[in-house]
C-alpha cells in the first residue's frame, strides 16, 4: 500500500514536471546576444538565449521596444544564406513568460553557416518584416577518412561474415542436384 502511494506521488511529480517543461521556459539571466530590428513599422529587440549551433535549436524572444500593442502577431522562420545548403525552417512560437508584450520562440538550425531569422509581424499599423542575423557554429569536423572508416563498418562486417560462412561451407556446397520442383 505504501509502495503504491509512493508510486502515485512520484508519478504526479513527473507529470507536473513534464507539464511545466511543455510550455516555453522562463529565461534566466541575460541573453547571449541582442539585436535591434525594425520589423516594418514595429521596432523590436530580438534576444538569443543560447549560442546558435548547427544541429541544435536556437531559443529567442522578440520584445517590442516601445512597450507595444498586445495584439501584435509574430511569425518567424530561419532562412539559410546563399552559401548554406538548407531550406527555410519555421520557428515554434509562444507567449514570452517574462514579457506580456513579447513572444518566445525556438527554431532548429540544421546546417552550419549564415542564416537570417526572418520575422513577420502583423498589428494595428499593418504588416511588417525584418531580419536578425544568425551564425550557426559548426560542430567539430570529423576528417572524411574517419567518416568512411566508420561508415564502411557494415560493409566489412558483411564481407567478413559471408567469407567465413563460405569457407565453412566449402566448395561442394553448390553441387548441382536434380532440379527441385
Amino acid at each position: 500500500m505504501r509502495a503504491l502511494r509512493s508510486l502515485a506521488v512520484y508519478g504526479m511529480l513527473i507529470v507536473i514536471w513534464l507539464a511545466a517543461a511543455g510550455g516555453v521556459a522562463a529565461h534566466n539571466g541575460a541573453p547571449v546576444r541582442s539585436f535591434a530590428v525594425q520589423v516594418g513599422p514595429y521596432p523590436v529587440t530580438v534576444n538569443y538565449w543560447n549560442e546558435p549551433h548547427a544541429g541544435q535549436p536556437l531559443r529567442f524572444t522578440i520584445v517590442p521596444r516601445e512597450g507595444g500593442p498586445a495584439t501584435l502577431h509574430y511569425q518567424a522562420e530561419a532562412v539559410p544564406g546563399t552559401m548554406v545548403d538548407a531550406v527555410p525552417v519555421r520557428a515554434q512560437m509562444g507567449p514570452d513568460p517574462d514579457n506580456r508584450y513579447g513572444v518566445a520562440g525556438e527554431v532548429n538550425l540544421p546546417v552550419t553557416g549564415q542564416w537570417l531569422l526572418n520575422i513577420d509581424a502583423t498589428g494595428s499599423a499593418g504588416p511588417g518584416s525584418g531580419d536578425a542575423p544568425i551564425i550557426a557554429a559548426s560542430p567539430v569536423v570529423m576528417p572524411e577518412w574517419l567518416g568512411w572508416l566508420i561508415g564502411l563498418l557494415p560493409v566489412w562486417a558483411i564481407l567478413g561474415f559471408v567469407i567465413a560462412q563460405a569457407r565453412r561451407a566449402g566448395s561442394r556446397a553448390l553441387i548441382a542436384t536434380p532440379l527441385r520442383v
Partner: protein
Amino acid sequence: MRLAGAAVLGMAAATFAVGTAWDIQWHTAVGRDRTFTPPHILMLGGIALLGLVSLALILLDTWRARRGQGVNAANSSRMFRVFQAPVGLAVTGFGAALAALAFPFDDYWHTIYGIDVVLLAPFHVMLGFGVIMAELGVLYLIAGEANRMTAGRTQRATHVGFLVQLGITLSTIMLYLVQGTSAQGLMHIGSYSYVFYPVMLALSVPIGLLTAVWVTRRPGAATVTALAVLAVRALMATFVPGAMSAAVAAEGLTYRPSAPEFIVTSNAMPLGILGAALLIDALYVVLRRRATLVVPLLALAGALIAVAETLVDQPWAAILPKYYYVDMNVGAMWLASLPLTALAAALGAGLALLISRGLAAARQ
C-alpha cells in the same frame, strides 16, 4: 515460430526500403529541416522492428534451449556463451544496431555538409548497409530452416519466403541506383569518366538472381526474386506520392523549386530485371545436368546478362542530359562505362557465389 519471426523481419525491411524511397523524395522535393521528419520516422520504425524482433527471437530460443524445447546445437549456435539461437538472428540484430547508430552520425554529417549530401556518403552507406546486413541475417535464418526440412510442400513454401526476402534485400541494395540518376550520376577516376547507374546495376543484379538459383535450385527462383523487386518498386510508386502530399499539407511546408515531377526511387528501379531473371532461370534448366560446369557457366551467363540489362534499363539516359549534363552523348558514355560495368558484373557474380555457398550450407 522462427519463420513467423522471419516474416515480420521481412516486413520491417520492406518498411525501411519504402521509407527510404519516401525520404529520398522528401530530401529532393521539400528539404530536410530537422532529424525526425515523417520519412525518417518510418525508416527508424523499420530499423527498430528489425532490432527488437531479432532480440526477442534470440531470447525466446535461448529460453527454449534451456528448457530442452527443441532448440539445440543442430539448429542453433551458441553466442557470447549465453545465448542459443540461429546465427542469422545475431547478424540481423547487429545490422539493425549499426543502422540505428548511423542516424545520429548522419545528422552530424548533414550539419556540416548541408542537406543535399549524396547517397554515397559515409553515413548513408552505413545506414543502408546496416539494414542490408540485417536482411542478410534474415536470409540465413530462412535458409537454415529450409535446409533442415525434407523435400516437400513446406520446404517449397519456405523457399518462396526466402526468394521474397531476397527480393526485398536486392531492392535495398538497388536504392543506391538513385545516385546514378542524380547530378552525381557521372563519376570520375582521375581523367576516366563513367556513368554510375550501369555499374551499380551490373553489380547488384547477379548478386540477387544468381543467389536465388544457387541456393534454392528451383525452376523460376530468379523470376520470383525479380517479381519481389518489382512489387517493392510498385509499393514505392504507390505509397510515396500520397505520403508526400499528406505530410507536406499536414506540416504546412512548401516544395523546393527543384522538386522533381516523378518518384525518384521507383523511377530508378530496373524494370528489365524480370527479363534478366527469366533468362537466368531458362539457362539453369538447360545447364543443370552438367554438375561440374553449372556453377561457373551460370556465373558467366549471369554476368553477361547483367551487362546486357544495362542497355535495357537506362533511366539515367533520360535524366542526366536533360537536367545536369546537356552535352552528354548517352551511347558514348555507356560504352566508356563498359569496362567498369563488366568488372562490376563479374564482382557481382563472385559475391553471389560466396553468399550462396554459405546460405546453401546454413543449418544453425
